[in-house]
């Protein structure tokens, strides 16, 4: 046994797959210890905040302010305010004003602004320009002028006694706060989802639940498949015929269809993560049963089994010590495949809206489902679905790599 495990770990594919999987597992286990927030807490008001560090504006005001004179500050400020569309609009105006296109570089903020202020004239009539467009340019000009002004911003507060606005502070363009002195900030490495929940925390919780679903489904499917396969293969005769009849039925009826029907029949209220896992397990044992059966049939007539019988061993002993060790590698491989396909099945069901009920726990499939319903993919909010897809792909990829590695160890014909 030790020998076999050693051999498996000599396979590069297996080790690679195993490392990925172990990393995912470790993150899932340890992350909640460091970030104990409930995964479905709604943090943000609004949908799809992009990834980043969120610093409390209010607390920044009361934090100690430092003056830093940085050369690039103004240019950067303007550059960040000037959106791509604005730059394009500026370029259009400048072309209309007779500047050769080759001389305009929308990426060069400083040059662009110089050209703009040198040439812009709100009264100038550009042929074909709508009124709305003209107003847009006026607004843009004012905004750009405001950006350039060296004035400080004023912070005012309503005096509770007088009800008057009172200036309490001014903020210069050279004022800075130290992030570590701001009382409230929040890191959202993957932003928020459509409900304003932290995607990273949610994703890790979802990965855990999905893995659990996969494991439960895989173990159920493997146990059923193993039992039926052993019975059919070892007992044979009528038992075999009956089991094979059912197995053949389930082979051709598309599993996904069965899943849809059962999940729907169970009803939304009954569909917890565990129920879904059980349903997936109950519908996906067929392949294991077939594989185990054919293995057992070839083993059943092997001489070591006959010899074990002749040594007076009971059927249970023979199955446990003369059959199971021989098929253990296949069963483990089947289990790994079942787990990964269980995770995929859950995701598929959830996308159809037949996943676990949505109120308690997130799953990878539900996260995709939410992102799709709120059109994250069309709005360009990649952080809402890409990390989830990558996680699913990494899990299934790592498991299948482990499987391929094991297959090469156990199937000498595939070694090259």
């Amino acid at each position: 046994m030790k020998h076999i495990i050693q051999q498996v770990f000599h396979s590069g594919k297996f080790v690679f797959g195993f490392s990925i999987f172990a990393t995912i597992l470790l993150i899932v286990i340890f992350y909640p210890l460091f970030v104990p927030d409930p995964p479905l807490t709604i943090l943000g008001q609004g949908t799809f905040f992009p990834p980043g560090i969120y610093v409390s504006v209010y607390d920044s005001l009361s934090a100690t302010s430092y003056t830093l004179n940085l050369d690039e500050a103004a240019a950067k400020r303007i550059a960040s305010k000037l959106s791509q569309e604005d730059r394009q609009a500026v370029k259009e105006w400048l072309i209309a004003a007779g500047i050769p296109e080759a001389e305009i570089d929308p990426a060069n903020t400083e040059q662009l602004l110089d050209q703009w202020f040198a040439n812009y004239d709100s009264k100038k009539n550009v042929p074909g320009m709508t009124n709305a467009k003209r107003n847009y340019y006026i607004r843009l000009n004012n905004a750009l002028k405001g950006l350039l002004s060296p004035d400080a911003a004023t912070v005012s507060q309503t005096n509770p006694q007088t009800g008057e606005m009172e200036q309490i502070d001014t903020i210069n363009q050279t004022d800075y706060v130290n992030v570590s002195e701001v009382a409230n900030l929040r890191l959202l490495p993957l932003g928020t989802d459509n409900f304003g929940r932290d995607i990273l925390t949610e994703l890790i919780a979802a990965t855990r639940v999905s893995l659990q679903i996969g494991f439960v489904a895989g173990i159920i499917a493997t146990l059923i498949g193993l039992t039926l396969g052993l019975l059919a293969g070892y007992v044979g005769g009528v038992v075999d015929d009956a089991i094979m009849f059912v197995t053949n039925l389930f082979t051709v009826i598309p599993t996904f269809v069965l899943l849809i029907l059962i999940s729907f029949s169970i009803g939304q209220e009954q569909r917890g993560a565990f129920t879904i896992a059980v349903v997936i397990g109950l519908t996906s044992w067929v392949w294991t049963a077939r594989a185990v059966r054919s293995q057992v049939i070839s083993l059943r007539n092997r001489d070591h089994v006959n010899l074990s019988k002749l040594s007076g061993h009971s059927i249970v002993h023979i199955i446990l010590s003369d059959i199971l060790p021989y098929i253990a590698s296949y069963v483990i491989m089947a289990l790994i495949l079942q787990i990964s396909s269980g995770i995929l099945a859950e995701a598929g069901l959830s996308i159809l809206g037949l996943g676990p009920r949505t109120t308690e726990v997130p799953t990878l499939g539900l996260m995709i489902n939410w992102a799709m319903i709120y059109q994250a993919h069309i709005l360009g909010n990649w952080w809402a679905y890409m990390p989830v897809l990558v996680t699913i792909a990494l899990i299934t990829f790592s498991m299948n790599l482990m499987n391929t590695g094991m297959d090469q160890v156990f199937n000498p014909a595939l070694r090259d």
Partner: protein
Amino acid sequence: MTTLTQPLLSARGVTKVFGFGRQKNTAVDNVDLDLYEGEVISIVGESGSGKTTISKILLGLLTETSGEIYFQGAKRDIRSHAKKQEYWKNIQAIFQDPFSSYNIFNKIDSVLLDCINMRGGRSLPREKKVEMMSEACSFVNLKFEELTNKYPFELSGGQMQRLMIARIFLLKPKILLADEPTSMIDACSRATILDELMHLRREIGMTIIFITHDIGLAYYVSDKVYIMEKGKFVESGSADSVILHPKEPYTRRLLNDVPKIYEEWDLTTV
């Protein structure tokens, strides 16, 4: 030799049918056989003749479709597991392929330990068991100290098959069924295996049934030969009478088709 009147093991009208309907296949067809104590008999047949099936029936690994088998004069009853265990104390086997006769996950010791346990030695002290295993190994010219803690795949085919004989040495059954024990082994090791089997037979007074496709081997080792074709025994009798003076056309053909060394091999008859 007064017991000659009563066979140790006999079969009467044993038939085995596999499958049903169109796939029905009669592997063993109404077979009679008598095995007397101390004899060596051979069942000779080509592949598909049913010789393996009859051997499994005699061993009790398969159940006959019809017919009776008598052991020591009484009808064999192996319907319960306990009775089977009892029966298997009397009849044991060595199989054709030494490489598939071992459970590759168990160390070699376990094969021999099973035998000691089966003979009621489960509660013996460890030293006694080791002593018994060493004795069995040295009987077949193997050194137990070199084998202990080894796995089957670390042995050669000849060594594996000899260890199977050591197993029989420990079990001391009345009947040994040897199913082509030398066909997967090189010619040079074959003599060793056969010698050790015959030695064992003298040692513990065993009765042996050889199952083989090699009519030369059957002639060499056995007192009595049964020729099997399509599930039936077509000819049986003493080895000399069957091999040297065959009566049935099938036996003649079989003998004719085997290459000869001392006589001229007649190639015109095919």
